[in-house]
């Protein structure tokens, strides 16, 4: 066995119906079923969720912070890309 540590998993929880799953944190588990049960015990025991996703961390491809300039900064001076010129009705929640 190469390592004694269980692999790392990322946990996403939908806190109520209608909302999207949000990243809640990470944990260690030997397999997907254990990751789900651990997530339930670590993150949702105070009634925080209605649905859990777990994904092994190694399957997540992350952007490199060193590339933040080229990736994100060009968007900052283009206000017309943001829907700020519309009035949002009060009935529309979670935008």
């Amino acid at each position, binding site marked *: *066995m190469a390592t004694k540590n*269980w692999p790392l998993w990322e946990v996403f929880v939908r806190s109520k119906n209608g909302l999207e799953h949000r990243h809640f944190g990470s*944990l*260690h*588990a*030997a*397999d997907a*079923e*254990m990751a789900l*049960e*651990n997530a*339930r*015990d*670590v993150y949702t*025991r105070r009634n925080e969720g209605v649905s859990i996703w777990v994904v092994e961390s190694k399957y997540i491809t992350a952007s490199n912070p060193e590339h933040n300039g080229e990736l994100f900064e060009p968007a900052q001076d283009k206000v017309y890309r943001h829907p700020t010129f519309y009035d949002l009705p009060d009935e529309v929640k979670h935008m």
Partner: protein
Amino acid sequence: MKENLYNYILQIADNSLILGQRMGELCGHGPSLETDIACTNISLDLFGQVRSYYQYAAKIAADGRTEDDIAMLRKERDYLNILLVEQPNTDFGYTMARQFLFDVYHLLFLKELEKSKDLILSAIATKSIKEVTYHQRFSSDWIKRLGDGTEESHERIQNAINDLWTYTDELFRLSEVDEEMLEEGVAVDISKLKNGYYQKVSDVLEEATLTVPESKYFQKGGKQGIHTEHMGYLLADLQYMQRAYPNMEW
């Protein structure tokens, strides 16, 4: 006081109290942060159930004792839990084997208790079933994971199952209290749970590539207050604060 009902409630509640104490011992000592929290969650579920039972028992006793007095201040011979739940956390294999062997029984038991003529017991059963369904899922998964895991995990969980097997028959033995309460339509006929229990246990063990023990030598006595040598130490831990500082609260 309805002594049979009082003792019947204790028979049920003491199982959860003592197993809850055993799982609580792992708080801060679990094999990983995640399993540590999982075990203490199970412990808290069991203590939650226990409170409802002891509140009811205190009402039946009507002698001024509170739920805490009943939980904390009895002597060893007055605890009526089965022997299985008091067995120690020898290693994680024993902890999971004990949990699994109890969970399968516990769930079958609660599903029958739900039909009891006693509405309070029935309501506690209904509330507990969801929790215990999860306990059984958690412990069954661990039995499979350890049994079908490495050579070492297989051997250790098999040893734990073999050792604890001797305490399983007691689960289905009717005490005098059971028989009296059965006549009143309050108690569960636990002798009828036996086949379903061994079937479920065997299914999980087989899936876990484990051998179902064939031993026919069984221990009993817990429901009569005759406990194994581990019980005294467990109670010393459980009762220390109330014995050292009587009536303390926080």
